[in-house]
């Protein structure tokens, strides 16, 4: 038997050996041992299966393992996906977050429906924020009041209309026994009673007219600005310019209203159309009012005063609502602030108050030291060492002493030398 080589076996498996010595040697070798036959059959299987390898994609097992473990981690996102900072979220929405962080935010957003809704809500706010500039914020309380006023007025109208219905019940009017001609009635009802009835009806009508006039409620419009100013013309021809963050309430039909009365909280300039019989009154918060017939003035915020008025043209009167006797007549250029009790002329610089609160003991020491001990105090004067006094120490000594007397009861008298004083009987005033 010839020596059998591997390539001969391969040729045998492939069917290329059909005869010859080599073929006979292989046949003898296979018959000699079942194990040889088994090996060749296995090799034949491998060769046949290898033919299909070209249709199989090679698999990177390491990559597959990494993918598998990543999937396991995704089932528990808290372990991997960390919540982005508020700033990173903002920059993500602004589309300026670096790509590496951006991926992190997107993973966080997709890991939970609650997270994705955060992104959606933020986008909603950012999408609508610019449009708030043109949105007019309404004072819903004032509008509700305006609505209820109009509603009640309509209710009164309805009641008046119902008064025109027959007062006598229909059943009575329809009753044949009551029906009678005018002539018959005139004979039945005495003349004095007819006049009395007519007078009563007239009085009743007058009463309803008077009451209705009394209930003639004005419907108001409210205009509020936020970040913007606003110009408009009212139906009486007056021009209004509202400043930022201002609310103005005014009669919707200001021309037909009994009085032109407006309410402002904030800043506004008014170019008032002149209607002599109807003064134009602007109430500033609930403190002061400005009254004119025709002029230009403005209400503004002042750093020291909640209510301040400047007259630009013509003349106006500003007065306290609680006490109208406190007023100021303003000409063009005048500016006044309201300190809660009186009007302060803003065109006159306020006096500088140099006074400071000092400890009384300190004031006494100061007086003594700065008068070169010409001011002295009597021994054993009682005083509270923690007591304070508001005083301007830059004044002449006598003025300081005079001021000090407002806080304490004492006498001082001049000594023989110039600017020499002695304080005696020092006793704090009790408040």
């Amino acid at each position, binding site marked *: 038997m010839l020596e059998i080589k591997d390539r001969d076996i391969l040729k045998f498996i492939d069917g290329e050996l059909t005869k010859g010595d080599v073929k006979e040697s292989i046949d003898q070798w296979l018959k000699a041992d079942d194990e040889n036959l088994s090996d060749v059959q296995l090799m034949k299987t491998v060769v046949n299966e290898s033919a299909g390898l070209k249709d199989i994609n090679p698999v990177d097992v390491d990559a597959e393992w990494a993918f598998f473990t990543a999937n396991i981690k995704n089932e528990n996102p808290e372990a991997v996906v960390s919540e982005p*900072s*508020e*700033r990173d*979220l*903002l*920059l993500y929405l602004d589309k300026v977050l670096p790509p590496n962080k951006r991926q992190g935010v997107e993973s966080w957003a997709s890991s939970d429906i609650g997270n994705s809704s*955060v992104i959606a*809500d*933020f986008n*909603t*706010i*950012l999408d*609508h*924020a*610019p*449009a*708030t*500039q043109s*949105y*007019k*914020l*309404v004072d*819903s*309380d004032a*509008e*509700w009041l*305006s*609505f209820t006023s*109009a*509603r009640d007025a*309509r209710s009164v109208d309805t009641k008046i209309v119902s008064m025109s219905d027959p007062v006598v019940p229909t059943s009575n009017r329809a009753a044949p026994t009551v029906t009678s001609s005018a002539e018959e009635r005139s004979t039945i009802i005495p003349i004095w009673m007819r006049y009395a009835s007519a007078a009563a009806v007239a009085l009743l009508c007058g009463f309803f007219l008077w009451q209705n006039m009394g209930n003639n409620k004005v419907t108001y*419009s409210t*205009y509020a600005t*936020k*970040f913007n100013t606003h110009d*408009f013309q009212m139906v009486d021809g007056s021009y209004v310019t509202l400043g930022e963050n201002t609310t103005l309430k005014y009669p*919707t039909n200001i021309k037909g209203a009994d009085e032109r009365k407006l309410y402002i909280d904030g800043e506004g300039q008014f170019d008032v159309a002149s209607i002599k019989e109807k003064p134009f009154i602007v109430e500033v918060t609930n403190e002061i009012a400005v009254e004119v017939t025709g002029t230009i003035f403005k209400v503004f915020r002042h750093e020291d005063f909640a209510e301040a008025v400047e007259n630009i043209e013509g003349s106006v009167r500003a007065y306290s609502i609680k006490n109208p006797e406190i007023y100021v007549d303003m000409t063009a250029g005048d500016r006044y602030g309201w300190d809660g009790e009186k009007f302060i002329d803003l065109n006159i610089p306020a006096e500088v108050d140099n006074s400071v609160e000092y400890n009384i003991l300190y004031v006494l020491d100061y007086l003594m030291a700065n008068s070169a001990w010409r001011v002295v105090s009597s021994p054993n004067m009682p005083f509270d060492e923690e007591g304070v006094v508001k005083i301007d120490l830059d004044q002449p000594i006598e003025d300081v002493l005079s001021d000090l007397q407002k806080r304490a009861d004492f006498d001082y008298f001049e000594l023989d030398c110039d600017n020499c004083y002695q304080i005696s009987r020092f006793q704090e005033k009790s408040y």
Partner: protein
Amino acid sequence: MSNRPFNDDNFQSIFKTYFGPLCNYVNSNINDWEGSREIVQGAFMKIWENRESIEVQTTVKTYLYSSVRNRMIDYIRSSKRREDLNDAVGQEDVYIEDEKELDSMMIRQEIMKSLDRLKPKMKKIFVLSKVEGLTYGEVANYLNISKRSVEDNVAKALVLLREDLKKNELIFA
């Protein structure tokens, strides 16, 4: 929800919730604030007078929107502003868009209210940046603070605004 949703108890609340957005919605179509107020108030008056008999098959918001829209059309017709009418009610799909516009008005209203609840500085930074459209750098220069501070403030404001708006079920469910 009851299909007769208007009553003495809830009318004031409904009025205060929707009056502002409805006025702004109408005003965006007719550009007349006083006219807008009259239209919306008229719609509410009509609803008040018929509150016991009005049956609503959809939602209060949709019903209010429809009522106000119909009055707006009447107003435009009576004003003979045909061009505006065509713009406002030209096509059916505009109807859908309009109701979204009402939603948008409600969101704007809530944002403005919420802004007032922020600290003044934070509010100012947010408004300059996201309402008035300045860049973070421009806001930083204007207020003489760092750009990082601007970003932090806007980010925080955004979180607070969302928290505030979330309280209103009509805005964010």
